[in-house]
């Protein structure tokens, strides 16, 4: 079975699991239809569509030629920036409530900008400058001018 078939099976299981949880939704005497009515329709629809996806994949006579995935090195080169961006951003989100907006944003912009470009040490000061500028300007613009609160963190309680 191909990728779509597995996705269909996954959605089928997910839909079935949520459907089995419908009974836990508390009913309301003021609304006879009940809050589970609409999700029930949706879950039936999702289960049916997932089933179609699985069947479509199973009976499909047309087999796509498997595309050459290229060398391992090529794959790593291709996905490395995406993975880097994802990891650094996740760390930024994790540390944002701890370090606060200013500190974490300076670190995030500096590190990610440096890692995504050509890795040369002399680029680091430029990245740091961008990080400081972006964080300070947005802090002043939002906190002071627009009065939009930004995460404080333990350093700026």
């Amino acid at each position, binding site marked *: 079975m191909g990728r779509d078939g597995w996705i269909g099976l996954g959605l089928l299981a997910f839909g079935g699991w949520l459907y089995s949880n419908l009974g836990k*939704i508390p009913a309301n005497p003021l609304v006879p239809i009940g809050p589970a009515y609409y999700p029930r329709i949706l879950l039936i629809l999702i289960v049916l569509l997932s089933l179609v996806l699985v069947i479509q994949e199973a009976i499909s006579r047309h087999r796509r030629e498997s595309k050459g995935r290229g060398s391992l090195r090529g794959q790593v080169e291709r996905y490395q920036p995406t993975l880097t961006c994802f990891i650094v951003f996740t760390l930024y989100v994790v540390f944002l409530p701890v370090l606060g907006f200013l500190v974490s944003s300076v670190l995030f912009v500096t590190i990610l900008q440096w890692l995504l470009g050509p890795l040369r040490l002399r680029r680091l000061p430029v990245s740091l400058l961008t990080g400081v500028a972006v964080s300070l300007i947005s802090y002043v613009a939002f906190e002071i001018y627009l009065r939009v609160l930004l995460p404080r963190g333990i350093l700026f309680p």
Partner: protein
Amino acid sequence: MLEIISQAALSLLEPNVFIGMTTGVLAGLIGGAIPGITITMTVILVLPFTFGMDPLQAIATMIGVYVGGESGTLISASLLGIPGTPSGIATTFDGYPMTKNGEPGRAVWTGIWASLLGGLLAGIPLVIGATQLAKLALRFGPWEYFSLFILTLSIVGALTEGSFIKGLLSGALGLLITTIGADPIMSSPRFTFGLEILSTGFAFLPILIGLFAFSQLLVDLESRRERAQTESAIDFNLSVSHLKVLKDIVSQPFNLVWSTLVGFWIGILPAVGGSAANILAYDQAKKFSKHPEKFGTGISDGIIASESANNANVGGSLITMMAFGIPGDAVTAVMLGALIIHGIQPGPLFATTHIKIAYGMLASYFIAHLVTVVILGMSLRAFIKVITVPLHTLIPVVLVFCVIGSYALNNIMENVYTFLLFGILGYLMVKTGFPLAPMVLGVILGDQIEINLIRSIMTDSNPWLFLTRPISGTLLVLAVLSFILAIYQERRHLKKRQSGA
């Protein structure tokens, strides 16, 4: 009506509103011109700035971004052959060859003037249509609204690229997301599993920012190309005779008007947007042309078709949002979210209950087009420098603004986690061929579909009313037809692929 629009236009000239709109146009031009930064992303970047504004200023700023973005894309499309956004793909077909033929100024300015004329022409059906459609919508009961939303979802599922089943699944999952948290009728908790983070459900804007911005950036990183041509772009000679360019455009009235109508119509269709409008208009212009063989060699016809269509698309997208509260594309989806944050729900009563904002939107649509031309006239050369900024410099900055936009919505970290979660989901969906637009529309319409479904059943339990009420029945028949058409197209596409294999 014209009097109200004139008054609205005057209120737009108040310094704070006008500065907001002009800044929006400038941001849109920059975002649109930089390959890899879409107009949706630019609107998302501007979104947190609008939280502290009054509603008219906020919406004028966003319309400025939208209009500016549609024009900004033509700069890189014409000069580098790389469209700034998908709205400018067809502009590259003739804009770039014209530049290579030694007429970069003519290529850019044909696009700019065609954008202006197409945009202004589309303003006419926008003004007339928005009020007329709102009057029609006043006759809608819950049955009609339910059927309209189902039609909208079916069109989106059918029109988006890729598998029809995947489109429908994406839409259904979007609807399912809105059932998490408190139900919209009696606030009973659903699918919360005792988790605090799920008790209030997911906020709509962080979902949208995650799906459209984060996932797009990750995909861009995989396919980024260093733009070697950009260095030479700085030396372009952009001088041109504006009178000659305008004469050239006006001498093709059919091309201009037809492309405008094509763009406007595509804009009305939910979630299709400028990316389809410019290509369809280009294709139509080529089919109707007396010299189709010259298309792609650097003639003005193709640029006029593409650029008038993508700006007219803005008008079409705004009309459904104003009349029914249904976004025409991702940009209007963000605008809709911004209006809801300000306590305004677009729909049939929008034009009567929020006159100043509704007509302000129409007026800002016209004024933003004029401001765009003025800004480009004064600083076109500066934009050429802007498009040389590498993507790796911009991505961290864009992500910081996405975080601000998500967090500042309610000042809670949960929205940032939602943004990250849906960013990852969006990326996986793109990689596995699931379209994002139906999911976003499902998230937007989910509560409304449920509310109207429950209301209609509680008013009268007869389910046949959905079919026997004339407007509701017609809308459902159209929904079924769009399903059938989509299935037919998919089968035909599959057969073609099999015969080609």
